[in-house]
């Protein structure tokens, strides 16, 4: 076996790849949060609950309606996005002019209600959701066995992340979006329906969490607290990347996946803490985050 400085290199490569897989997952989840915060200045604590909803909707679609994984991958994010639209329109808009703290508390409360309701309905043990047949099995790489589904997670997450980034940063629609949230009055004067843009942006950001939920269903336990476990880490990633920086959220997500993967290899006990340690260091040295603009 190849070793370098006493470290098993094959093992290390395996850990790096696994870190990248988790990182692409983090990127996907933090992207939604970054969009909602960056463009709308709403700190959405219900994002984890929306991720959980995505996984549960996928499970329900399969078990109650016979909708398979591939169809769920399209339908479920739309359904979760619709819930996001309703949430923005009827819960968040009435308090849009209040302090950010109000929307934070409201979404936090909503997350607790959803989690409690799902625990009540489905119990706390979780549901099983099988990997679709097309993605079963895997390939033996020189240094590890790579399951096909994990490869699919990397590819699809990166495609969605890059497409979203491109749309917001490089297209005309993205320009409207950014302008509409930067200076709503002016855009309104130009005849752009800003409230609609805000609602749809929120719906899109939440829909991304739903998409991540469907992606997660076959590999992680589909349980009511899956979102709350994930949310805090994802928030830390968004903070490290720079609140609201979309590219920053994606790159930091990938980077933190790798950092976490290496920690799991060298000192597993610290693996859930390492991201927060990085967060503290970043906040002390660059308070706006790695990719954020200084206010």
């Amino acid at each position, binding site marked *: 076996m190849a070793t370098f400085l006493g470290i098993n290199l094959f093992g290390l490569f395996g850990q790096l790849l696994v870190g990248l897989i988790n990182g692409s997952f983090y990127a996907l989840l933090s992207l939604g949060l970054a969009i909602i915060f960056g463009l709308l200045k709403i700190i959405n604590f219900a994002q984890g609950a929306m991720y959980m909803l995505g996984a549960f909707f996928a499970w329900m679609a399969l078990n109650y309606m016979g909708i398979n994984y591939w169809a769920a991958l399209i339908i479920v994010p739309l359904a979760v996005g619709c819930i996001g639209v309703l949430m923005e329109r009827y819960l968040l808009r009435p308090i849009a002019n209040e302090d950010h703290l109000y929307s934070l508390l409201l979404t936090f409360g909503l997350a607790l209600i959803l989690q409690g309701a799902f625990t009540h309905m489905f119990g706390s*043990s979780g549901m099983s959701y099988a990997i679709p047949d097309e993605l079963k099995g895997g390939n033996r790489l020189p240094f590890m066995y790579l399951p096909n589904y994990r490869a699919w997670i990397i590819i699809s997450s990166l495609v969605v992340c890059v497409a979203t980034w491109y749309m917001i940063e490089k297209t005309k629609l993205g320009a409207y979006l950014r302008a509409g949230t930067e200076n709503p009055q002016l855009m309104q004067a130009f005849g752009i329906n800003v409230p609609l843009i805000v609602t749809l942006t929120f719906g899109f950001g939440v829909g991304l969490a739903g998409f991540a939920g469907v992606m997660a269903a076959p590999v992680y336990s589909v349980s009511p607290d899956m979102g709350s476990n994930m949310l805090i880490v994802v928030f830390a990633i968004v903070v490290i990347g720079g609140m609201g920086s979309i590219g920053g959220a994606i790159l930091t997500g990938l980077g933190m996946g790798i950092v976490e993967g290496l920690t799991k290899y060298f000192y597993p006990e610290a693996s859930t803490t390492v991201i927060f340690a990085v967060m503290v260091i970043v906040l002390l040295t660059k308070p706006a985050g790695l990719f954020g603009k200084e206010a």
Partner: protein
Amino acid sequence: MKSLKKSLLSAAVASVFAVSGAQAAGISDDKVKIGVLADMGGVYADICGKGCVTAVEMAVEDFGGTVLGKPIEVVSADDQNKPDIGSAKAREWVESQGVDAVTGLVASSVTGAVTKVLTDNKKIALISTSASHAFTTKACSPYNAHWTYNVVALANGTVKPMVDAGKKKWFFITADYAFGHALEKVASGVIKNNGGEVVGAVRAPLGTTDFSSYVLQAQSSGADVVALANAGADFVNSLKTSAEFGLTEMVDVAGLLVFTHNAKALDPNIAGGMKLTTGFYWDMDDETRAWSKRFKERHGSIPAMGQAGAYSMTMHYLNAIKEAGTDDADTVMKVMKKNKPNDFFARNAYLRNDGRMVHDMYQVRIKKADERKNEDDIFAIEQVIPGEQAFGPMLSQCDFK
């Protein structure tokens, strides 16, 4: 006149003494109050929670609702898996609300804090679902009764037969908190005593979602068996990942603590074939089926082992009060240890002086998809493990006669 006053006074004093004397021998506060303390809405809600409340209520109803002519009352509370909340509730119950015994008791950390409060107040702890063996060893108390199972029984039941069958090299994926450490330590002892070796271990923090790093490490360790010393969602996630990365095909993966509800949450194609140890399985015989059917009608799902245990221990406790003629904890505990529990749950059972309820444990196999007749058809019983073999010997310092 004076003498009349004096005799009236002495009669009054005597009657007061008579009443208090009668109270000490009979039922305190004119009722028997049982508190059910468990995680009601968190990760462990399914394995005890409201199901434990239902089981205790069923026991009280089956007992007739009264003991020695006094009513039996059941109260319950959510400990949120937090030792401070659990112990504060227990203290309130025993110190100001006349609770005589506390049952439920799931997370070992909570149970540790609660049993301390109960022992200080000379009240009985009826532990249904906790795994740690501390309550009958290093933290033993004359007021503890630990039913259902513990880590020693899990290690003896699951690990020993595998080591005996030639699986000598073990790797642990351990939950990084008290329960996981205890389980790993006890299981490692069993492995070494039987000629095996532990080739490695990783400590995964509680609530880890992605276990792929640990699975890769297990894969390169050269172990014959990878033991999952964790529970609940951690177990489900780690086993799912093991299957996905092909670990389950390369080596044996052993779940050390698996509740029926967790096994149900797994794809039978992944979990099918795994052997594990349990203190109860609903579909064992007519007696277990009859009780479990009643339980399911009320609670909506089949009983977890701790829920069946909660019924059994409540029944044993109430019977002991009836025989003792009092709810005084010391007297009741003596009777509980003298009489052997014998019901659908407790087979070949007795409550040892250290508070350990020794009874038959079961080595079971998770059924594959094509073996299952319905959604509750999860385990096949492979072997009955006699209690003495499962729970190991008693420590002399815990021999509370």
